[in-house]
Structure formats: structure tokens, C-alpha cells
């Protein structure tokens, strides 16, 4: 199948560079999900393996359970920016697949400038204060045995919004460049990136196992 129309594949240096930053940072943060699974396992073992010493375990269990939602929320917040670079946010594709490339780029530019970017600016403004407030007031968990330094997880919000700004800036530049070079881009294969991502994840398996049948894709 042919190439996709995404700024990523056109090697516009500045776009590749900005996306690279986001993807490297978030790609590393994503591994926290593995830590989360392991943390859950440890909690379960502690709780059910040593449940007789319930009181004694109060101390490690409370902070560990708080750590769990820290571990869930950080990759998910940072992932918002990653999904912009991979263009995998959910879209209603029905009309879009029939639009000319020119119209697609124009809608994308308008959407980024009028819908997404104003939100990011406003959210950055408030969330920065939110994190600073947590730091200056030395906020910590409401539970006495909970985690201190709430500002660390609260500053995840402005940081992830900053990353989203970088990612959406990269998309904006890419879309503008593509709009100016209409007709010089590879053909669109009409498969939304979100679907292509899942297909790419699940495809290699078949080549290994399924020798007896013809491949339907590629």
C-alpha cells in the first residue's frame, strides 16, 4: 500500500525534530505501565500473602496504592502529546476520507489554531499556577501515611500540556508546508493512522504462524 499523508513521513526537518522530542520523552514514560503492573502484583502479594499482619502493612500499602494512580496517570497524560505526533486521536472519518487533500489540510490548520491551541494556552496558564500552588503550600496526600510532594504529580499537567504544544506546533508546521506543496505528496491510502497503527501492531504475527494461507494485506 502507498504512503500516508502525514507530516511525519515527509521528513520536514523541523517537524521530525519536534516530533522526535515528544516521542522520545513519552516513549520512555510509557514504560511506567509495566511498573504499574508489577506494583499491582506486589500489592496483591502483600495484601493476600501477609494479610494477618494487617496493621503492620498499613504503612507500605497506603503509599503504594497512591503510587498506582500516579503510575497510571503519568503515561496517559504524556500520551496525549504522543497521539498527536502519531495522528491517532479519534476522528470521524466518514467525510474526511472523501475530502481533497487541500481541504483536509485547511480544516486541520483551522482546527489546530482555533480549537486545540487556545485550549492548550488556557490550560497551561491555570495548570502552571496549580502546580506552583501545590509546591509553595507543600501539598501532600490527605492520608497521614500517604505520599508527600503532591506538586510532582500536579506538575505533570503543565508538562504534558507543554509537550502537546510542541506536538501540535509540529503538526501545524507540517500541515502548512504540505498545503503549500499540494500535489507533490504521495497518494493517500485512505486508511486512518489509528487503524494503521493497530494493524501494524498485530500483523507480523501472521507471517510467522500462518504459512498455509495467503496474506490479505500487503
Amino acid at each position, binding site marked *: 500500500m502507498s504512503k500516508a499523508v502525514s507530516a511525519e513521513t515527509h521528513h520536514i526537518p523541523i517537524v521530525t525534530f519536534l516530533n522526535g522530542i515528544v516521542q522520545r520523552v513519552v516513549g520512555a514514560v510509557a514504560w511506567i505501565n509495566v511498573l504499574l503492573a508489577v*506494583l499491582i*502484583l506486589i500489592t496483591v502479594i502483600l495484601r493476600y500473602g501477609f494479610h494477618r499482619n494487617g496493621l503492620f502493612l498499613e504503612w507500605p500499602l497506603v503509599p503504594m496504592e497512591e503510587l498506582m*494512580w500516579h503510575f497510571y496517570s503519568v503515561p*496517559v497524560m504524556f*500520551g496525549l502529546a504522543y497521539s498527536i505526533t502519531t495522528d491517532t*486521536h479519534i476522528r470521524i472519518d466518514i467525510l474526511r476520507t472523501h475530502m481533497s487533500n487541500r481541504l483536509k489540510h485547511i480544516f486541520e490548520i483551522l482546527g489546530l489554531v482555533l480549537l486545540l491551541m487556545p485550549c492548550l494556552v*488556557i490550560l497551561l496558564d*491555570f495548570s502552571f499556577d496549580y502546580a506552583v500552588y501545590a509546591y509553595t503550600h507543600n501539598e501532600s496526600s490527605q492520608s497521614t501515611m500517604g505520599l508527600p510532594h503532591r506538586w510532582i504529580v500536579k506538575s505533570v499537567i503543565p508538562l504534558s500540556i507543554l509537550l502537546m504544544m510542541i506536538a501540535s506546533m509540529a503538526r501545524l508546521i507540517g500541515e502548512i508546508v504540505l498545503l503549500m506543496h499540494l500535489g507533490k505528496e504521495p497518494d493517500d491510502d485512505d486508511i486512518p493512522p489509528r487503524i494503521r497503527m493497530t494493524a501494524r501492531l498485530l500483523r507480523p504475527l501472521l507471517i*510467522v504462524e500462518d504459512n498455509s494461507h495467503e496474506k*490479505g494485506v500487503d
Partner: protein
Amino acid sequence: MELAPENYLVIAMFVSFIALLFTGFPVAWVLAGVGITFAGIAWWTDDMGWTMTGLDYNTLGLLVGRIFGIMDNWVLIALPMFIFMGLMLEKSGVAERMMHSMQKLFGNVRGGLAVTVALIGIILAASTGIIGASVVLLGLMSVPVMLNQNYDKSLALGTVAASGCLGILIPPSIMLVIMGDQLAVPILDLFMGAVFPGLILGALYIAYIVVYCKINPDKAPLAKDHGEIDLKTVLQALVDILPPAGLILLVLGSIFMGISTVTEASGIGALGATLIAVIFRRFNWKVLKDVVINTMNTAAYIFAIFVGATIFALVLRESGGDELIESALTGLGFGPNGLIIFVLVVVFFLGFFLDWIEISLIILPLLAPVISALNLQINGFGVVEFPNLTWFALLVAVTLQTSFLTPPVGFALFYLKGVCPPEVKLTDIYRGVVPFIILQLIALILVFIFPELVTWLPAVAYGNI
């Protein structure tokens, strides 16, 4: 009904949201952008003295706290963990193994291949809950095989699309996690309530395939190389079903018997799926990395709609949207059952162009107070905490099954089209899903008439029967 000036803002907000969706800009950012824009508009119309919403720039400051509220959420931890479990299990090759051995097992049955797909759909459904992934996997795996065997295109595609969607209903399902969070209903109850509706749907699909193939044998030819079924084939099929089935029993069993919470079970499920991948020698660094990155990406695009919906809902609520919808619904003059039917019809039609995520995040919270206030008399056997809402959530969940299949925007259709050989047209898929949509409506009517299908299992688990 007399409309206040603020009501026009609310209506305009909904209309612009729907209209902008069709530009193809990401749903999450349309929600967020429309929310922020209308906060600005309301601020201005307040200023002009036309409305009294009280919205201004500082109101938007509440948003950060709301976003933190989604982060600081014990329930939603299960979201990335169930996604991880599903993707890892699909990477582990269990589906191909099942496909391979069950294909042999049903080799002598007309439509055996389609039945195999439906069965794998049901088993995978219990393990994933990411509709895209199930449809893609089933599509990649079975569509070429079925077309090779000269199956009727529509039958093949309809089976794949419908079976792939079961994941979102059969527990553990991330949709039910999100619904439970939004409605403040125990997720445990929703999981248990979904078991029978999910199995009924699966059974209806299989019954339909078998009957259809009996009537139209030419639409589903037998494989050329089909052989006799011996004990070895049966045993092989059992061995191949065992790992995913065992994992599901472990995860669901420990939740249902009250041994572990949903969150704990999701983490254990993620590790269990990894263990299966290791046993099947599919586990390596690259697989783990792929799963980790895709888990993050998938969780993020669902979470993005959480963020967008939070912004949209805040502005909607501040402009009096909640009361408008509540008074509009109660002002219709329907009885309790009439109102439920009306809401389900609305959800059915919204499903033509909205996804389950938006419906669960925007529409459900608006409806929850109206539904709770209804005098429904749903039999909760005295132990189900919110029988009305649990039943209602499951009705919506079954209705949403149709939303994945209904053109023009059915998400399963697009995923399936994306991975099918190019000769498959979107219209083939449309034609194929029609009978399955009818089956889904039959299941919906059954759940509507017999609420015990939902409430019986939780009641048994809570030990009151």
C-alpha cells in the same frame, strides 16, 4: 416549553459540536475547543446583559482540578492495564492457535469457519475490550481465509465486524469501567450484569450463522481439505483454548468472587497475558516494546476524550445545559418505560455518528439523574445497590453495540475496511452487518423485557439467592 436565552447557547453548543465533528478534526479537541469557545461567548453575552451564566475566564480555572480528578482516580487505573492485557494476549498468538484448531474442529460444519470466528470473538472479548484491536486481529486473521474458501463476502465481513465488537460488552470491558466511573455504579455490578447480555448476543450470532448456512449452503462452502474429526483434534482445540480461557477465569473469577478489586485483577491480567506470550515463545523485547507503546497510545486517545468531555461538560453545566436536558426529558410526558425507550432510541441514532466514548462521557452523565429519579421497580433482589442504573447502563451498552456497526460512522466498519484486501468494498461490509444489527436489537429487547438478565448474576454473587 419556553426557552431562556441561555438555552440557545446550549443548543448552539451541541449543534456546533456535531457540525465540527464532520470536519474530521479529532473528536477530543473539537469537544475542548467548542467548550472553551462557548465559555468565551457566554462571557460576552453575559457582559451584554443577554444571558446570566456567570461564566468568565476564571471559571475555566476549575478545569485543571477536574483534569487532576481524572488522574487521581483509583477506578481508571484498570484502563491501561486491561488494554495492556488485551494487546499482549493478541500478540501472544492465542487467537491464531484457536483459529487453527477450531477450524479443524468445525471443518465438517457448514459455516464452521464463521462459527469459529464468532467463538474466538467471544473468547477474545472476555480478554480485551478494545474494539479496534479485536476487529483488526479477526479481520487480518480470518477474512482472507474465508474469502479463499469462497465464503459469501457479506457473511464473512458481518461475522468479523459483529464478533469483534463483543469485546466492548463482555467483561472485563473498558467501556463498563468508564460507565461505572461516570454513573458512580460499582464496576463489579456492571461486569456481572454484562455476562448474560454478552453471552446471549454471542449465542444469537452463532445460531444465526448456523441457520443461515443451512438455508444457503452455497454461501459457506466447506474447506476442500476438511477431514474427519478425531480425538486428537478435539484435544488440540481444548489445549489451545485453555490459556486464554484460564486467564479470563482467573481475572473474572477473582473479581466476581470478591477476592480482588477490578484494579488488582487488571494488573494481574496484564502480567498473566505476558506469561502466556512467554510460554508460547512469542515474548521478546520488541513485542514488549510494541505493546507498551501501543498501550500508552491507545489509553491516551481514550483519555483525550475524557479531557475534552470534561471541558465541554463544565461549560455545558455552567450554561444550564443539565437542567435544560432534564426538563426537556421529563417534560416529554412519557412514563418511566417510555422515557427509557426514548433515550435508547436517541442513543441508537447518536450511535450513527458518535462513538461509545463520547456517549458514555457526555450523554450518560446528563441522563443519570433523570434515570435515577424514575420509579422503575427493577428487581435488584435486595442486594444490587443501584438496580435501575445498572440495568440502564447495560441497556445503553447493548444499544452501543449497534453503534459500532451502523453506517456511516460505525467504527468497526472502518477498522475492518482498513485491514481487508482492497477488493472488499465498504458497501459489502454495510450489507454484511445488517442481520447482526437486527440480532443486537433482539438482544436489546430481551434485556429490556427481562431486567433479571442483568441483575440476577450480581444477586447470586452477593449471596441473596
